[in-house]
């Protein structure tokens, strides 16, 4: 009740003051505020490796060789790399005789940092691979070797590959 009396008194006093502004107010008030705009875009990539290889054997030396290419296309965050590392050795086995040739695999490029991962295959940066083995006697031979594929930002860690996909040519 005391408050009401005070307000009534204030109102009456304000009326007495006549044209003087009772409150100081600006014609317009301005402010500026902001919103944060964010987007999270995940990395994605495809690894291109051969589906099959045909080894060529020099019948003078029984040395067998084959070449291939591997690459990575897609979109990788800066600071991350995709690793495509072939098995260093594998066995080529003769179909009828059971002979085995220890075959080595080497590849000139095994790491594709973000800048080397192009969006289109036409722009891809390739690594050259080669197979080599001695002792391929006449007959049919076959073998399988694997690629370790990983996306990582802390160096080569192909034992624990991350999300991966691959396309064979």
């Amino acid at each position, binding site marked *: *009740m005391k408050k*009401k*009396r005070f307000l*009534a*008194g204030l*109102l*009456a*006093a304000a*009326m*007495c003051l*006549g*044209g003087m*502004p*009772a*409150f100081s*107010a*600006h*014609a*317009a*008030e*301005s*402010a*500026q*505020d*902001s*919103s*944060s*705009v*964010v*987007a*999270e*875009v*995940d*990395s*994605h990539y495809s690894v291109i490796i051969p589906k099959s290889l045909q080894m060529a054997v020099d019948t003078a030396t029984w040395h067998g060789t084959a070449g291939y290419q591997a690459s990575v296309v897609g*979109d*990788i*965050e*800066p*600071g991350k790399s995709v690793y495509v590392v072939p098995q260093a050795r594998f066995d080529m086995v003769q179909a009828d005789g059971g002979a085995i040739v220890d075959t080595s695999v080497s590849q000139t490029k095994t790491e594709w940092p*973000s800048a080397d991962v192009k969006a289109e295959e036409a722009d891809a940066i390739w690594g050259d691979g080669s197979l080599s083995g001695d002792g391929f006697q006449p007959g049919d031979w076959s073998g399988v070797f694997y690629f370790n594929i990983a996306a990582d930002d802390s160096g080569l860690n192909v034992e624990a590959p991350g999300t991966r996909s691959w396309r064979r040519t």
Partner: protein
Amino acid sequence: MRLLAAAAMSGALCIGSLGSALTARAETQSVTVTAQVDGSYTVTIPKEIVLTLQEDGSHAGEYTVDVEGTIADSTYVSVVPQPTITLSSEGREDVPCDVSQGVQKFHSRGYAGELAADAAKIADGPEASGTVRTQDGQHLASGHWQGTLLFDINLAGAPAAGGAGQGAE
């Protein structure tokens, strides 16, 4: 009752003192009484706008703007976003984005004038929606993208002696 009595008493005291000065001249004077009631309003803009991949390959995000409160019919609240912003991501080039917001002027609920194409009346719930979109359908590469969208908020068209807003949120 007590309120009226208090006001009357206070008024009488004031007028009494004024009257005593006038009675000597035997004149009558009128007093013009005016009142200016300030409007108040609250503008709500999003804290965060998230852009996502669209079918056309661009990244875009929508947001809403809400204005609440009571303002004079002769005024309106303007909420104007920056027309363009820039998104940044570590190791990437900045990507510009266009901002569009159809309604940018918010009139009082009782506004009887014609509404412009970019105007609306203050109503319950969001009155305006906007979009942040990468320019020219540009695609955001992988990574964490961030930017800031500034809004200019004003109470415009206010009469010279009043109509101040109450800030923005």
